[in-house]
């Protein structure tokens, strides 16, 4: 089956009321896929770790306290949670811009989901409140292709029997999964 067919099939399953793809892709999975495939594999197997760490708490805090007046949270299909600004744009908030690509892909996935599953076209804003930085994100043709490659990549990865092999990344030392990964 070609990539295009698989995407069509996936979109169809998402569109139909009462059905659900065998592997429902979420924004977090998209982000993980671009940060570390091993992390995504662990997460897909319900292998979770202590989420009460300061980094996570900081991220949650920044997310919960930023731009409160001008945005609202929506839960779509019981799975996709995104923030809409008063202007109508979809906003994704991150503490820092060090992992810019994964954050942008997560936001692009939301835009893709809205457009191809719900026929709603939106623009996106990626915001780093602690850095006083914002950038706008648009779902152009290239971005669409990249999101679709990501979705296929996630479906294939999650179907693997064993996790991708260990490889040292610069941010391993601050990853929540390090105690699991390297032990």
């Amino acid at each position, binding site marked *: 089956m070609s990539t295009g067919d698989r995407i069509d099939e996936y979109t169809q399953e998402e569109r139909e009321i009462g059905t659900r793809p065998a592997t429902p892709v979420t924004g977090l999975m998209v982000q993980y896929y671009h940060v570390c495939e091993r992390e995504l594999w662990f997460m897909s197997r*319900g292998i*979770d*770790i202590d989420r009460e*760490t300061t980094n996570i708490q900081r991220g949650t805090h920044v997310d919960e306290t930023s731009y409160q007046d001008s945005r609202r949270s929506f839960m779509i299909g019981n799975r996709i949670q995104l923030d809409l600004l008063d202007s109508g744009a979809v906003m994704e908030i991150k503490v820092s811009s060090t992992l810019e690509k994964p954050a942008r892909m997560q936001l692009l996935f939301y835009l893709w989901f809205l457009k191809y599953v719900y026929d709603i076209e939106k623009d996106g804003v990626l915001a780093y409140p602690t850095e006083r930085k914002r950038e706008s994100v648009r779902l152009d043709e290239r971005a669409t292709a990249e999101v679709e490659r990501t979705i296929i990549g996630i479906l294939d990865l999650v179907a693997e029997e064993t996790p991708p092999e260990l490889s040292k990344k610069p941010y391993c030392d601050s990853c929540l999964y390090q*105690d699991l990964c390297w*032990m």
Partner: protein
Amino acid sequence: MTKPNHHIFADGELSRNESTLRIDTLDGETKYLPVESVDSLYLHGQIDFNTRALGLLNDHGVPVHVFGWKDYYKGSYLPKRGQVSGNTVVEQVRAYDDKRRLRIAHQVIEASIHNMRANIRYYSSRKGDFSTTLDKLSELKERVTSTETIDNLRAVEGNARKQYYRCFDTILREPFALERREYNPPSNEANALVSFLNGMVYTTCVSAIRKTALDPTVGFVHEPGERRFTLSLDIADIFKPILADRLVFRLVNRQQITVDDFESDLDGCLLTEDGRLTVLQEYEETLDRTIEHPRLNRKVSFKTLVQTDVYSLKKHLLTGEPYQATERWW
């Protein structure tokens, strides 16, 4: 990264006050305990508590270990599982039933013997000539790999532990002597101390396992038929030499604990309340002690080591990557 445990010795009442814990002791003192800063709560006194207090502990994932008369371990109130994962439990039980069980058991016993040997090696020449025991322990550790049944494996482990405990009388400053390892109830001061600390190691392992989706009742060396959490018993065997025995030697030899810290009555010997306080304080400090971890590239506490050991087992069960039981490397 890890939070400290908290021990309550007083008699009194534990309640919820807004979003924190409040302890009112019978002698009229009130203390507040920020629930987010507690890893596990230990109740040693007579404590009244209600479901509101338990609810708060539950929300923060804090297990409560309850001790009764003379600090006998009574049981644990475990928070609702934050980690639920059906396939973890399924894989754990499958591993118990297939050839993985023996390999995990090998790892546990090898690490356990290794850690016993490390203690004896430390005191060899310092306290006496233990070369015979050291050789015997090496030999037993090597025998593990070729031992093909769990029963025989337990025999090897039992044999090692016997050799190991035999050195205690030489290591311990007089008048402490283990003579024979006895419990239920412990027959002398050294046995009482070892029993008490082994119990603490056990609860430390219970807390660590609770942070994963593993089922604490399905162990690999110990048979799941026992009434206790057999997986905790397995993991505790690895860590007893590191967390308990080394502390026994230190407490006795530095005379932080003396025979006055014990009381004998009926047919047993147990720590006094003062004694328990001293031992627990030192035990908690041991848990917080850190060492450089070669694979994690950072300093980790002994308490984290217990956690990472459990993670390693869980990872093995779910991915097939090797389980590495913690062997003292420092």
